[in-house]
């Protein structure tokens, strides 16, 4: 049983890892920005599954809600507000930005690998087992409603203020 579970986990991980790499390659090569945005969602969802495999349910949920949900929504909104036809017709000269971008991306990759291999960024070591990590949603919830109760309540007022503001600034004139 044990080995089948491990093999299954490996298979899911490999599937998700390759899908997310494929999705990010497609994301930067598509001409149509809406397609790019869709591949971005795919990429975020794959990463969310990888978080789940690491027993970090909370981060996985936040990844889906905030990144795949809210942020991609914003990006799609912006794409729709811009004039896409114009953008597609004009052949932008992207050569230099492509070169610089690739160099930076490779540097960033090496930086990440170095960071992961050479140092432990959190200073904590040890294995992330299911037993240790499964309680993290509960831990966040308890912190939110005990220690951080007061800021939690203040956030609700902050959001109300933001909603009122958005309504007023976009409301039609009183006639």
């Amino acid at each position, binding site marked *: 049983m044990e080995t089948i579970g491990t093999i299954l986990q490996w298979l899911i991980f490999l599937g998700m890892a390759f899908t997310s790499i494929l999705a990010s390659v497609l994301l930067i090569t598509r001409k149509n920005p809406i397609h790019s945005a869709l591949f971005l969602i795919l990429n975020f969802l794959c990463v969310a599954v990888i978080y789940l495999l690491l027993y970090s349910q909370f981060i996985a949920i936040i990844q889906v809600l905030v990144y795949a949900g809210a942020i991609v929504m914003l990006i799609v909104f912006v794409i729709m507000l811009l004039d896409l036809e114009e953008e597609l017709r004009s052949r932008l000269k992207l050569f230099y930005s492509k070169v610089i971008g690739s160099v930076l991306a490779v540097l960033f990759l090496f930086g990440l690998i170095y960071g992961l291999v050479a140092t432990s960024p959190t200073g904590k070591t040890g294995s992330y087992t299911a037993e240790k990590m499964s309680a993290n949603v509960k831990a966040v919830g308890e912190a939110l409603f005990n220690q951080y109760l007061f800021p939690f309540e*203040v956030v609700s*007022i*902050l959001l109300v*203020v933001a909603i*009122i*503001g958005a309504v007023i600034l976009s*409301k039609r004139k009183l006639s």
Partner: protein
Amino acid sequence: MKLPEIDLYLIAPEIILTAFGFLVLLADVFSPRTEKKGYLGILSLIGIVVAFFYTLPLIGSGKSGFEGMFTADGFALFLKVTFLIIAFITILISMGYAEREGIAFGEYYALILFSTLGMSLMASGTHLITIFLGLETMSIAIYVLAGMLREDRRSVESAFKYFLLGAFATGFLLYGIALLYGATGSLQLKEIATYIASKNLLRNPMLMISLVFLTIGFGFKIASVPFHMWTPDVYEGAPTSITAFMATGVKAAGFAALIRVFFTALPQFRPDWTSIMWLISVATMTVGNIVAISQSNIKRMLAYSSIAHAGYILVAFVAGNDIGISGILFYLMAYAFMNLGAFTCVILLGKKGEENTLITDYSGIGFKYPLLAASMTVFLLSMAGIPPLGGFMAKVYVFSAAVKEKFYWLAILGVLNSAVSVYYYLRVTVLMYFREPQREITGLQFSPASVLALIIALIGTFYMGLFPANVLSFAQKSIVGLM
């Protein structure tokens, strides 16, 4: 599982401000759609008075709660009293002004209450999350209030500019907070200080960068040079009542958070931030005063003057002793009275479609509207620091704090700047009394609420100049335990 301790009396002023904010919103929904929203202003005034009476009994208790998130110490309460006075006067001057300019939104008053709530959270927060949330509640409400004159392009520009730059400054502040958390593992101000002292992190690069980012974030809110670029445009375009609120309330709240964070969480870094703030202080005073001289619009002139005043307050911040911090509290209250008074005069001299905000519009009004001109003169002289007005005593405390800590050059530069500022304040007075009117200003309507605001501001300015000891001793008692 232990439930958190909840002491509602501790946050009673905040609860009341929130409750009245929602009450105003509800009353607006259930009332007929008319242009007149003055009754909502009265409702908000009642809310502020009630909050005031729940603030007073807390004075002297020095309690804190909510797991180290919130404190009701003297420092916070003094500032809360200041914020409530500012909000009270702002709503009084808004009642006539909003009707005149056709701001037919009941939300206007609710947003003023919510932003006052944000200010008091900034003064009371002892945890960076509380302070940050207070700052955002205040700022978002102000961004919207600045754009309330939707027909006026300058107002929309002002709101948009303030929003974009404000969001940018918030980014810096958050980055600073995150680095502070990364280096110390806590967001509670006292815990941060204890951790830095115990681990001796004085040369930690992360903390150094964090210090710079926090300075930028707060420096934007108090409009100090070089983070002041937004001030004149935003102050000019926003509705005048909101400009007054920004120049007094937002500035005071920014100083509250700045002092709280720097003196409670980062006292070990005092030599470092003293030298940064020395430079910022001198730059702020000098740029503010010199650019103010060449302004032709009174709102822009007052904007640059408010930059200069932030510089004077920073003089006391650099000194950082007991006289300095209580002097800052005194200054913020005195500045609230004189600046709100000056903006009230600016509002009263305008009418629908004709704001009369050019400085030359003030020519000769001394004979036509003697009381208005006389009040304006009082406020301007107080800002210039002429005895026996509140602004004079405030400057005396601020500069004497610097002298006591042997920052002689800073004090000298401050006094020189103060002398420069007399020029542009007196210019308006000279125009009012010694020039022929350039064009006829007629048909001004003095709404009773604005006149009441003017009277309160006058009493405040004179009281703080003639009997400074009362307020000063209150301020001195307030800062016990802060440092």
